[in-house]
């Protein structure tokens, strides 16, 4: 198993791979990266204003997320975590929904029909096996859809990660495991999370391939996931990808990361910014300028602001409505409780 991180663009924007990237594709990825970053900043700002409850910022991880879902078709499933808003958005799960959940509205968990993505997992580690079950169903139902699950370095310590990986190996389900190793699980550094040198090598335990990629290199992530998706679709089973990246801010807006890590470490990773290297490369191809940047930012901001406005326009829950989603048909005890709750809220 080759555990050298796969890289296509260096932090300086130098292309290192064999075939030159397609400018149009890279511009599309760059646009997504810009929108991802703007959303993340907007969400953090909203939280500071008390308009979101808490928020888990992903700045620094945009490339891993955009690169992860780029290879997916709309029939493929995404089963991701609380920090994966950008990945979800670019698999079709609206910003509006992601905002609603963060505002404390369950309706955020109800994406439009046709969007194949589960609401983001809040518990750590329990959701990866869902992507195994979904992929397995796709296989049994005879479709060629795959399921991509995204999780952090911390999640790999959970028992359910093991059971998910093992099932995927045994049943060769078309599941892609993408770990965003961002160096930390709240205050726990990666080095104390597990004694293995890499996360990718854990695939050895399950009889399928693992791969390390530069997670701040959107093209490298996209290449690795494309390979994994292609294998999975062809019936060759699962793959584990470890994307090396970093979260630039605290674990959530409630976290003070100064308590457990030094600013120098953050600086090292700022220098590996996932947007900048793409911009530099595009610039080198004469495919980037300030005007286009402004245009991108403007377009993205408008989309994000529209989502915020829409989310905030939704009225709040009535007491009765909290009973609407426990069973398809309300049971007799719940009907009784509902009427009591409605009375109490009058």
């Amino acid at each position, binding site marked *: 198993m080759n555990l050298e991180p796969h890289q296509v663009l260096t932090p300086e924007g130098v292309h290192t791979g064999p075939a030159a990237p397609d400018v149009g594709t890279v511009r599309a990825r760059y646009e997504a990266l810009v929108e991802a970053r703007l959303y993340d900043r907007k969400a953090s700002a909203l939280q500071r204003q008390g308009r979101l409850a808490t928020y888990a910022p992903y700045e620094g991880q945009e490339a891993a997320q955009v690169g992860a879902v780029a290879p997916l078709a709309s029939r493929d499933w995404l089963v991701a975590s609380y920090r994966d808003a950008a990945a979800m958005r670019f698999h079709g799960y609206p910003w509006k929904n992601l905002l609603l959940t963060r505002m404390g509205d369950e*309706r955020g968990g*109800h994406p439009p029909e046709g969007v194949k993505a*589960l609401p983001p997992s809040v518990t750590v580690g329990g959701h990866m*096996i869902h*992507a195994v079950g979904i992929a397995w169903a796709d296989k*049994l139902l005879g479709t060629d859809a795959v399921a991509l699950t995204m999780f952090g370095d911390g999640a790999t310590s959970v*028992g359910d990660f093991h059971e998910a990986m093992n099932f995927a190996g045994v049943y060769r389900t078309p599941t892609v495991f993408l770990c965003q190793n961002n160096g930390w699980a709240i205050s726990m550094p990666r080095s104390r999370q597990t004694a293995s040198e890499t996360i990718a090598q854990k695939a050895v335990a399950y009889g399928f391939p693992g791969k390390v990629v530069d997670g701040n290199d959107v093209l490298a992530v996209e290449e690795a996931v494309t390979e994994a998706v292609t294998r999975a679709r062809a019936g060759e089973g699962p793959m584990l990808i470890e994307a090396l990246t970093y979260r630039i801010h605290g674990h959530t807006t409630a976290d003070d990361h100064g308590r457990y890590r030094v600013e120098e470490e953050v600086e090292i990773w700022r220098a590996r910014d996932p947007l900048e290297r793409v911009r530099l490369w595009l610039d080198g191809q004469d495919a980037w300028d300030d005007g286009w940047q402004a245009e991108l930012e403007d377009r993205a901001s408008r989309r994000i602001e529209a989502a915020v406005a829409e989310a905030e326009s939704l009225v709040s829950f009535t007491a009765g409505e909290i009973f609407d*989603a426990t*069973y398809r048909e309300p049971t*007799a005890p719940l009907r009784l409780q509902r009427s009591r709750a409605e009375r109490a809220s009058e």
Partner: protein
Amino acid sequence: MSVMTMAQALNSALDVALSDPRVVVIGEDIGTTGGVFRITDGLAEKHGAERVIDTPVAESGIVGAAFGMAVAGMRPIVEMQFMGFSYPAYDQVISHVARIRNRSRNRFTAPMVIRLPYGAGIGAAEHHSESTEAIYTHIPGLKVVVASTPENAKGLLLAALDDPDPVIYMEPIRLYRAARGEVPGGRYMTPIGSAVVEQGGTDVSLVSYGAMMRETREAAGRLADEGVSAEIIDVRTLVPLDADTIVASVAKTGRAVIIHEAPLTGGYGAEIVAIVQERALYSLRAPVQRVTGWDVVVPLRLAERHYMPSATRIVSAARRTLEG
């Protein structure tokens, strides 16, 4: 109609269920060997090993994978070998299976059945005699049913599978072979959410479910010999509870004994008592009695009989209500 054991009735229900291509049965040792209790005997051969799926030892993985399948449009039926082995899967059941409907405000659902062979009385090893329904009945989003006869075992299982929401399906191990009775062929359903008055009576209501129905019926017989007319209620569905049937019975008799083999404290019997006193307090002529397992781990073979509620204990409890 044919006479079957409960084990055969369950096998028949699963066979019928598997005629729906969305259905898979998944669990440990259920394929080649037909399961520890042979409930899935012959099904892998008939319906294929891809649909009657043997798994590695990983209860959480089984439930989690089945959850994914259910979300993706299938109808999985999970077999846990024993209720006592379901705890590693508890997080999956409570955090995901029971909640995806609420989490997604009805966008995603996990219609699936989790079969839990439960209960003591066969002198089994530790962990093999659990009756921890209370850890499931408290969880919003789950339904919980308990079979007590071959006929309702099949009917409830098919109803559970037909239900749009996840169902915890408890199978009394002690009755797998001991309970025999007429079972209709083909597909039929025993409604979820309805208790049944098995025998009318006027003096005291005996309320139970699952394996304990046997001792309950025996106790009713003995009470009849003493001239006491007991009404027997088989709760069948713990969640959602058919409170009306139970309350109507107690309102009539004025006395009730709730029987289950789970430990007393925090057992489901407490919920039934709470509802009865809430809705029929003024009819109560004596405190509702609970005859249950004690608050200890179910003993192994040597001492198990000291733990299990017996017909004798039920009769004494009923007498206490009559004296009260």
